């Protein structure tokens, strides 16, 4: 609370901040931590663990399909595997991994000391983990969800799937929705209110815009999924009639609600991936992004138009043609803002001096794969084509090109680009390139033939096929590609764990990056920055040389905030300092609350109503503990 000390003020400020923000090692702090970096890492590691599980499921399926009439898997197991593969990759890998990078890097890139609601952040992670365990415990009883990731009724009604498979699905997704919604609110408020002074709207890094667009979509799309799941739970458990045509309900209601969520979900997974590309490219071509404003508007436009295209998943259902015309139009339209971004990336690549290191290779791979997926996407926007190829392997090829392109490749690029910041050590460059080429070649070998298979008439979601239809060679190629892809992924995971311990020390700014995450140490201190910087440019690390010292001095606008567990609150549009905010301390309550909620969902699953009531009361007590006022911290 005093003026800046004389002499080596940096060392003194660091010492004070460490005393305020530091966390003692030990189990207590491990459970209670609210540090966005520890939480971000956990998101990432958990996502990678689920990615490995989802990948193994895929390899099992590809092995089964390598030739006609193989008998590695029986039909029921196959159904459970493709259902859990989709659920895992969407909800337990892509969303958590992208939230993980967001958690770790949004506060760093906007110059804040933490997220707006650190405890909500911890709660989001624990809830994700609890819901993931909840979903996967279905394998233990041999009753994993088995009606696909979009779980259509009436197949998913109690009458046709009497087991608890679908109860795991509906309850697991409602549970996960709590985690995602809390996380989304946290991202939005953080990005609106915690930006460093001087970071006006047009200076927000594009990656942060991507996370904002994702969070906004979650706010407005996820309720549709949660509602659909709640209604199905009521139908299955208490005999309500929402999806039962015999009692006046309508199975199509599920399809509408699911895809009102499900199509935005594609962009929920894609937009942060676009953001990662826009974060990697400038650093590796040594020039600012061309068309910043157009990219930002493009991202927000994709997010908006993405809400108007859900019926293109239902072109084969038999709705009125006028509906199809509108939706087809919107679906064609969504290609425009997406293409704007692609051209901005290409222009920046051409105008700059690209260095083909691993992060940029993954971005190039992303662009190529995503464009192929985008082109087949435009084909699907045309109703007759869609009706001819619906439920065929062409759809499988398309969705993997879009999703693996826009999520997996950027995520892996980000591991190489940002990994040194997170671990303090460089990843091995040669292994990185080996991994990229294995993944890129493997992916295309695995999924390109599936276009052909679809056009040859192979339906998706069949556990085997007859010989003599001309499908064997394509399927075999696809299986070989899948193994190559898996090997490439394995190389990066090994590289990560090896480099984390033994890699070359990275230094604070190994790539001479342009945004504020490179202003912190590697790995960043608990308090992120010695001084919260005043930002005067869109690429502050390139245009404000005083930041290179690691601590912008007070005469240049750096604020130490050593008076407590503080961060700065700034105005929404132009980033003027408005207040200092006392941030909440670490707390075990988010962890406890996620446990009581898990007990609640298991009680609903097993229909033990007494336990459910007790779990609700325990959850209310945990919330009370969480919000118990303590001294100076902010009230909520």
């Amino acid at each position: 609370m005093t003026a800046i000390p004389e002499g080596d003020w940096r060392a003194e400020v660091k010492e004070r901040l460490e005393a305020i923000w530091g966390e003692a090692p030990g189990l207590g702090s491990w459970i209670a931590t609210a540090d966005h970096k520890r939480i971000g890492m956990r998101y990432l590691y958990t996502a990678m663990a689920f990615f490995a599980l989802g990948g193994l499921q895929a390899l099992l399926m590809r092995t089964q399909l390598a030739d006609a009439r193989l008998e590695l898997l029986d039909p029921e197991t196959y159904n459970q595997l493709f259902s859990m593969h989709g659920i895992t990759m969407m909800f337990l890998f892509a969303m958590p991994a992208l939230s993980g990078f967001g958690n770790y890097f949004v506060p760093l890139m906007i110059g804040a000391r933490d997220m707006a609601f650190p405890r909500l952040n911890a709660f989001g992670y624990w809830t994700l983990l609890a819901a993931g365990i909840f979903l996967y415990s279905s394998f233990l009883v041999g009753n994993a969800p088995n009606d696909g990731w979009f779980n259509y009724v009436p197949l998913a009604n109690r009458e046709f799937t009497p087991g608890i498979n679908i109860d795991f699905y509906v309850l697991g997704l409602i549970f996960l929705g709590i985690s995602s919604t809390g996380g989304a609110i946290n991202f939005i408020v953080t990005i609106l209110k915690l930006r460093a002074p001087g970071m006006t709207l047009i200076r927000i890094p594009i990656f942060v815009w991507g996370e904002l667009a994702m969070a906004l979509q979650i706010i407005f799309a996820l309720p549709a999924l949660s509602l659909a799941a709640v209604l199905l739970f009521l139908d299955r458990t208490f005999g309500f009639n929402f999806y039962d045509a015999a009692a006046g309900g309508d199975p199509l209601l599920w399809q509408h609600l699911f895809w009102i969520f499900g199509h935005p979900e594609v962009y929920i997974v894609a937009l942060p991936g676009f953001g990662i590309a826009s974060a990697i490219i400038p650093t590796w071509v040594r020039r600012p992004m061309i068309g910043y404003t157009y990219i930002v508007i493009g991202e927000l436009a994709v997010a908006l138009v993405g809400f108007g295209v859900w019926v293109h998943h239902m072109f084969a259902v038999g709705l009125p043609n006028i509906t199809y015309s509108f939706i087809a139009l919107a679906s064609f339209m969504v290609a425009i803002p997406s293409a704007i971004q692609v051209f901005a990336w290409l222009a920046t690549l051409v105008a700059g001096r690209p260095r083909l290191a691993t992060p940029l290779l993954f971005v190039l791979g992303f662009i190529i794969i995503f464009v192929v997926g985008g082109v087949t996407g435009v084909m699907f926007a045309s109703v007759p084509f869609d009706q001819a190829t619906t439920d065929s392997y062409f759809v499988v090829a398309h969705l993997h090109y879009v999703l693996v392109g826009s999520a997996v490749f950027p995520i892996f690029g980000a591991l190489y680009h940002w990994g040194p910041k997170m671990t303090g050590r460089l990843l091995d460059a040669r292994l990185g390139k080996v991994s990229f080429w294995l993944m890129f070649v493997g992916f295309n070998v695995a999924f390109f033939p599936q276009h052909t298979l679809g056009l040859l008439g192979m339906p998706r979601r069949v556990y085997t096929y007859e010989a003599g239809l001309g499908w064997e060679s394509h399927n075999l190629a696809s299986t070989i590609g899948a193994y190559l892809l898996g090997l490439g992924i394995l190389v990066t995971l090994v590289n990560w764990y090896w480099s984390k311990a033994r890699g070359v020390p990275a230094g604070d700014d190994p790539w001479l990056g342009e945004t504020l995450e490179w202003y912190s140490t590697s790995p960043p201190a608990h308090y992120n920055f010695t001084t919260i910087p005043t930002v005067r440019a869109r690429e502050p690390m390139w245009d404000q040389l005083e930041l290179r010292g690691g601590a912008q001095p007070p005469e240049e606008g750096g604020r130490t905030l050593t008076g407590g567990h503080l961060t700065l609150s700034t105005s929404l549009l132009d980033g003027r300092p408005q207040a200092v905010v006392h941030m909440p301390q670490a707390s075990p309550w988010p962890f406890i609350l996620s446990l009581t909620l898990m007990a609640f969902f298991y009680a609903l699953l097993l229909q033990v109503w007494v336990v459910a009531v007790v779990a609700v009361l325990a959850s209310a007590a945990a919330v009370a503990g969480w919000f118990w006022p303590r001294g100076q911290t902010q009230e909520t």
Partner: protein
Amino acid sequence: MQARKELTVAETGLPGEVLPEHSEGPRAFGWWGMVWLIATEATLFSLLFGSYFYLRFRYGPIWPPEGISKPDLVLPLVMTAILWSSSIPVHIADAGIRKGDQGRLRWGLAAGSMLGAVFLFMTVGVEWPEKLREFTPATNVYGSLFFTITGFHAAHVLVGLLVSLWTQVWAWRGAFDERRHLSVQNFAMYWHFVDTVWAFVLATIYLSPHL
């Protein structure tokens, strides 16, 4: 609650710069958190009402289905008057504490929760038993919609009452003053939201079958 140091400003480390330590309204993180929570909840309710009309128009010309009479309007309109009037004392409490008026805060919150509790009792204790004699959620899709939509809303009233109770405990212990009252503000915003949603429940469930 323990005595607090009287601090109104905190130094940021910039020579001479002092900034306030407490925020309210659009300057506070918590206020924005509540805004986005309400946004996602409003989306949920919109989809629920959308589902009602989707299922209704897919059902056919006779709505409610045969054997179920059109909803009686007297009780719902009385309930509406009670619930909407509860927003007035909540607003008085919210506006009062901004000026540091502890009395208006405590009695406003108490009166608001009393009215809310009466409303909740009328939904679950009077309206539901009466309807259950006529139909249940399992009877047909109309019953499912009726009990799900009124139940969703009643659950939100219940959560509001619990939060109100919590806020009142701390209000009586003197936790709020003219600078620190974000919890009160957030509760009031949530309560007004739940009251607003009721307008749509009333229009959807009770009024629209008469059209």
